[in-house]
């Protein structure tokens, strides 16, 4: 059953819907989960561009050993805001956006459980992001203590300035956190309560399982960060002593609370990416997803294990040996469910005829890069190795392999994969492939050099370094600029295709999810008739299901 994806089926082509040209709704306070999803995705992409610009300034500074492009406080502000924006205003809210768009469609619901709450969760974000960026205008600049904001460094602010960069940083992160928690409540309730008849837990697509696991982590772990930040704010501005080592406080407590959230946050970011792989790979391999149930349960497994690993960020924070040992073992245990995932993806594309369209390229590229990110992660979980490379560029390389090479690639895969569903039009394949190869080459050129740099001992968060590190740094910087350039064909493609793209039809990929059974873009209430689900989610290759079906499956089941 092969099908040329570039040619939509004749019967799929439908007259233009009213929704398409109604761009004003995307600037309004809409309660439609699809509008909110698009709002999230577009807004976070703008923040992604800002975060990327900050990264390119960092790379420009690091191209020479001397500190000559930006001054040191500004450099500190750059890496602090780069990390903060990429985590709190790009990946996490983008995942909230794509989940917002897809989860109700995938489970056969008309909307999220609490549409008004959903809109409020979104509209908290833009002001928080602008607030965060506005700290560049303060006389003392932005927060400068990195995205973890460890005390006592984060508490060292000039006296007599109650409103400083750090203060604004904390306030905006707490606001973003409130938005995330409201979103998580909404997602969990939606997935538990809004499923279409017959949509049992083990008929949910793996993307929904990943979203559920990620949102459960938000619910359980994010409040710990909020609590820690509230205490930090009191220390900073109201004279309390929780984390002040000079006045009996204990900064290590902050580290515990911070990592209790921020390690699982890695999985809050990564799980939706894994879910995207599980949707894209079977569609382009025309194979059923291998080990669907193990992959679904592995999402929850990753979530559960990840709650018990936070101390591996603190191996050098005077952590007792037994605790290091314990958390080394739990950290390595994460490799088991993630390994299940990786094997599932590999087995799905095993011996299949691959259709290398852009979403598939990004998904395969991301999944392959996850290998390097994941393996360096297991290395870092080992205490002796971690002590050796602690706070070096090896860590930076490792987590960029995860957050950029895996998660951001998955995000691009998702954008290309669901672009026809969201806009009703196809993107331009050639531009998409150009985007992929520029991104793939640029990302590896940027982040691979960081691994040997770290092993050689280059410390992170510095604007000047010993000349012997310059070779790798030049490669990384040039890769970084290539990565910056790579975003241009993407923007051109998205804007151009949105305006002039070919009509996509309802199911251009002949994919099996419920979201493909409705029109592109879906109508306000998603489905004309709520579908009754009677089949597993990934039945690619089953001749009975390899044609497009109407939303009501009664006909297909004889």
């Amino acid at each position, binding site marked *: 059953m092969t099908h040329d994806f570039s040619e939509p089926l004749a019967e799929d082509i439908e007259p233009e819907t009213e929704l398409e040209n109604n761009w004003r709704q995307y600037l309004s306070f809409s309660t439609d989960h699809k509008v909110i999803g698009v709002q999230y995705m577009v807004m976070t992409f703008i923040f992604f561009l800002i975060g990327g610009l900050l990264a390119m300034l960092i790379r420009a500074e690091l191209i020479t050993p001397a500190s000559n492009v930006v001054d040191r406080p500004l450099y500190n502000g750059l890496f602090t805001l780069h990390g903060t924006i990429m985590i709190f205003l790009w990946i996490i809210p983008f995942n909230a956006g794509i989940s917002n768009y897809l989860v109700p469609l995938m489970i056969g619901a008309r909307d999220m459980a609490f549409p008004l709450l959903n809109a409020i969760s979104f509209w908290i974000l833009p002001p928080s992001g602008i607030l965060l960026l506005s700290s560049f205008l303060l006389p003392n600049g932005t927060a400068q203590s990195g995205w973890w904001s460890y005390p006592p460094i984060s508490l060292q602010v000039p006296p007599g300035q109650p409103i400083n960069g750090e203060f604004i940083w904390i306030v905006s992160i707490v606001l973003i956190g409130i938005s995330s928690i409201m979103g998580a409540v909404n997602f969990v309730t939606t997935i538990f309560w809004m*499923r279409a*008849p017959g949509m049992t837990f083990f008929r949910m697509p793996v993307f929904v399982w990943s979203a559920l696991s990620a949102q459960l982590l938000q619910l359980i*772990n994010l*409040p710990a960060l909020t609590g820690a930040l509230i205490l930090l704010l*009191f220390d900073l501005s109201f004279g*309390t002593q*929780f984390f002040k080592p000079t006045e*009996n406080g204990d900064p290590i407590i902050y580290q515990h609370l911070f990592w209790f959230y921020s390690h699982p946050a890695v999985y809050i970011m990564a799980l939706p990416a894994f879910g995207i792989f599980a949707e894209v790979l079977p569609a382009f391999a025309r194979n059923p997803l291998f080990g669907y149930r193990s992959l679904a349960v592995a999402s929850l497994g990753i979530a559960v294990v990840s709650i018990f690993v936070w101390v591996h960020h603190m191996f050098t924070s005077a952590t007792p040996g037994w605790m290091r040992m314990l958390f080394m073992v739990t950290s390595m245990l994460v490799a088991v469910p993630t390994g299940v995932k990786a094997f599932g993806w590999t087995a799905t594309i095993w011996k299949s005829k691959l259709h290398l369209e852009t979403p598939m390229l990004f998904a395969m590229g991301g999944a392959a890069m996850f290998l390097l990110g994941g393996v360096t992660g297991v290395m870092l979980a080992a205490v002796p190795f971690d002590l050796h490379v602690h706070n070096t560029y090896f860590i930076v390389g490792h987590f960029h392999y995860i957050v950029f090479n895996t998660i951001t690639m998955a995000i691009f895969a998702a954008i290309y994969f669901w672009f026809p569903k969201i806009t009703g039009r196809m993107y331009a394949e050639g531009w998409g492939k150009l985007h992929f190869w520029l991104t793939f080459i640029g990302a590896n050129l940027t982040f691979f050099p960081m691994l040997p740099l770290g092993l050689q001992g280059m410390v992170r968060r510095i604007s000047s370094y010993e000349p012997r590190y310059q070779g790798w740094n030049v490669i990384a910087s040039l890769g970084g600029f290539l990565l910056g350039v790579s975003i241009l064909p993407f923007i051109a493609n998205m804007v151009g295709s949105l305006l002039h793209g070919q009509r996509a039809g309802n199911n251009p990929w002949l994919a099996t999810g419920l979201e493909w059974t409705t029109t592109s873009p879906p109508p306000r209430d998603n489905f004309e008739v*709520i579908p009754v689900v009677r089949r597993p989610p990934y039945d690619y290759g089953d001749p009975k299901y390899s044609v497009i079906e109407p939303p009501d499956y009664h006909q297909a089941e004889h």
Partner: protein
Amino acid sequence: MTNDKNMNRSVIHVDESPFPLERLRQSLPNWLKRFLPVRGGRAEDHHGKGMFGFTVFLLSESIVFLSFFFTYIALRLTHSKNWLPPGISGPELSSFVIINTVVLLSSSFVIQPAENALKHHQLKKFRWLWLIAICMGTYFLIGQGIEWRNLNFGLSTGLVGSTFYVLTGFHGLHVLTGVILQIIMLVRSFMRGNYNKGHFGVSATTLFWHFVDVIWVFLFSLLYIWHA
């Protein structure tokens, strides 16, 4: 189209999972059952959906308190020597505090019958009991304000001041929120035909109030009893 009997059987379809989720669900107590809708398609139960979401939110909220408790306990264990600055005795377990606590905790036993009364459409009984609960909550807030005024230490007086004011303040903020919610529900019960629609609000407020009480039990034990 097959006949109706067959249709129904196929729509309500036993879960095919390796875990017998549906059997597990049937063996759960009723209040827990609604947290595991197995087959989906229960979207029309707005009250149940709302309560589910609100409970999930409270779970999240309790983690914020847990992080505060963790900080308190960790600081207390590692800094027991310099916990109190010289001349400061810390929060006292006085009869005033105990009465305040008793009033707050017993208000849970007032608000629950109030919610039940509304469920049985006994509007008048609901309003009276609800009003008593509001008064009890307000009494607690005023009592805490008086206690704060009479303490001989401030927010920045060592670890004891930092922890005491932030923890009780954060809890007090929740009590205040609860009281405001209660007042809104009481006002809504006077709007014609609104008390039935307001039922979710009343249930949620009741649950929130129980939550606030349970948190106070932990706070009271940590701040006053451990200290004494």
